[in-house]
């Protein structure tokens, strides 16, 4: 391995190596049971997921639909906290080498302390952050330098309503990938993307951005996964995965079957 690649952030490395069919899976820390966080990450890796997004549960997740809201509430009821999450992730890099992103709302991060949070992320081996209610301007003025200091990539969202100028601006301040929200709405599973959705996906593809994109919100099955991956580097799945593990009695088996069903092939053992 070249030295440069060795020091490269795991997210950048993934996108360097793979330009289509990437599967990133979101799930909530401490859900369905408080101690499931790390084992789900491990199962996802062995099932062939390319990246994971671990949700920091929050009492008021405004960008999320009912499935993820409920998983957040359950995790909090289970006693999940950000402090505990970092404890759980202490041994992360002994068994997991795919990129790991933390996704959550800004308030728990503020209460933890920005610097302490970033430091803890770096220590356990987190590669990036998705904070939907941290706006671009606020990020640039108060967060960017600290994130960079600790090697954390901040991932921005764009939606069908985002103007072309703003997409270009977001592209210019991103250096990992752009999270393309599939349609106007909160997180939640869909059966199929409409023509309108596909036109928007194509429009973004035609912009030839510097950063790769992943499509998220609404990916739930092989059809939507394939549709998403035609026009972007891959897909992010959340609600459909949460539904799968909600009442699971065999997490390993269910995680493997889920990845297989979605991608149509993957799964090693």
């Amino acid at each position, binding site marked *: 391995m070249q030295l440069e690649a060795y020091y490269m952030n795991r997210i950048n490395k993934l996108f360097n190596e793979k330009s289509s069919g990437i599967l990133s899976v979101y799930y909530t820390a401490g859900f369905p049971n408080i101690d499931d966080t790390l084992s789900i990450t491990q199962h996802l890796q062995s099932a062939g997921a390319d990246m994971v997004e671990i949700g920091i549960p929050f009492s008021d997740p*405004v960008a999320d639909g009912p499935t993820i809201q409920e998983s957040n509430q359950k995790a909090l009821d289970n006693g999940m906290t*950000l402090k505990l999450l970092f404890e759980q992730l202490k041994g992360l890099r002994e068994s997991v080498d795919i990129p790991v992103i933390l996704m959550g*709302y800004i308030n728990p991060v503020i*209460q933890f302390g920005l610097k302490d949070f970033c430091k803890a992320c770096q220590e356990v081996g987190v590669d990036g952050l998705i904070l939907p*209610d941290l706006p671009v301007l606020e990020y640039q003025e108060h967060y960017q330098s600290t994130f960079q200091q600790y090697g954390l990539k901040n991932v921005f969202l764009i939606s069908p309503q985002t103007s072309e100028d703003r997409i270009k601006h977001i592209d210019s301040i991103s250096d990992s990938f752009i999270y393309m929200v599939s349609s*106007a709405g909160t997180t939640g599973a869909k059966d199929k993307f409409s023509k309108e959705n596909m036109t928007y996906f194509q429009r973004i593809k035609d912009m030839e951005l510097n950063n790769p994109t992943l499509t998220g919100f609404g990916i739930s099955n092989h059809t939507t996964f394939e549709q998403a991956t035609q026009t972007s580097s891959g897909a992010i799945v959340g609600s459909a995965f949460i539904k799968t593990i909600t009442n699971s009695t065999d997490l390993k088996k269910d995680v493997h079957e889920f990845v297989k069903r979605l991608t149509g092939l993957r799964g090693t053992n």
Partner: protein
Amino acid sequence: MKYDVDSNGYYGQFGGAFIPEMLYPNIEELREQYLKIIEKESFKAEFDDLLKQYVGRPTPLYFAKRLSEKYKAKIYLKREDLCHTGAHKVNNTIGQILLAKALNKQKIIAETGAGQHGVATATVCALMGMECIVYMGEVDMARQRPNVERMRLLGAEVVPAKSGSRTLKDATNEAMRHWISNPTDTHYIIGSVVGPHPYPDMVARFQSVISAEIRTQLSSLEGRALPDKIIACVGGGSNAAGAFYHYLNDERVELIAVEAAGKGNESGKSAATTVLGKPGVLHGSKTLLMQTEDGQVVEPYSISAGLDYPGIGPIHAHLFDVGRVKFESATDQEAMEAGVELSRLEGIIPAIESAHALAALSKLELKADEIIVINLSGRGDKDLETYIKWGKY
């Protein structure tokens, strides 16, 4: 002016617009347009005319003689309880529905706790023939049945918020989610000086008619525009912002905000944000917020549904921070007693929210001949059930 919002939407360290990117175009449109629209002469004329002919403004500044005798000061009540729909909330909904029309929006959404803002929104939607959806916590819908039916009678759809604690903060979450899903044709009428910039400033401006009138009325009644003290209750803080607005730079006017202390600030059942809160981000702005060490929002408690909110508007967090406004709090019991007292002394049954402001009278050191204005934000009709349950009258 010294206490104005800055161009990024901040009041000192509080405010901003912490919204998901999906809402950026909506908030940006509002930010770019709101001052242009509301400062137009034609807008002002229509707003003023509706406030006069429809809402019944100016509301009286009533000298409360018997209350004054009891507290040995000159006490005036700003009678927002006499507004159409029974509270100050309608000043804001009239302003915002006109703004929504100017922005060519066809549909309106709102959140409501006690139902007062929901009723005020349903009212202006009926007036303008616009579709209206109001989100209300499932728990609040059960507590505030008559207001649910008032909204329905006015033609609004009332949608129960079933997530989280199923109260006002969750209704606000649901309204925001609805807006994310319907970004182009819908305007969200927020009910207090909360939310992302420019909402706090916009709502404060619409409510500022309260202090504009107090100045004129007091001048003609007392020969001076400045009272010694102004007292208002604070949930999110819109009636207080309106009552303080044109006095903020008159530093010799003492401004007093009263929060709900529920069963007491040490009881774990309170809504007194400046006592129990820390800086945090909820519903699009950085403000004082009741929360756990882990940053989870804590469910507040107050007998008054309209004060039962875990934050306060960023303008108030700032005014508290710099000491321009003094914050007091009143317990359920103190507020109920003050409500009964006003009923007996003046023949005015106040909303329980407003009764919190009245309760401050017995906590303050008053000088004889001091002029005090209390913003009576609403009437008590909606609270009859609570008064009856309270029973001590």
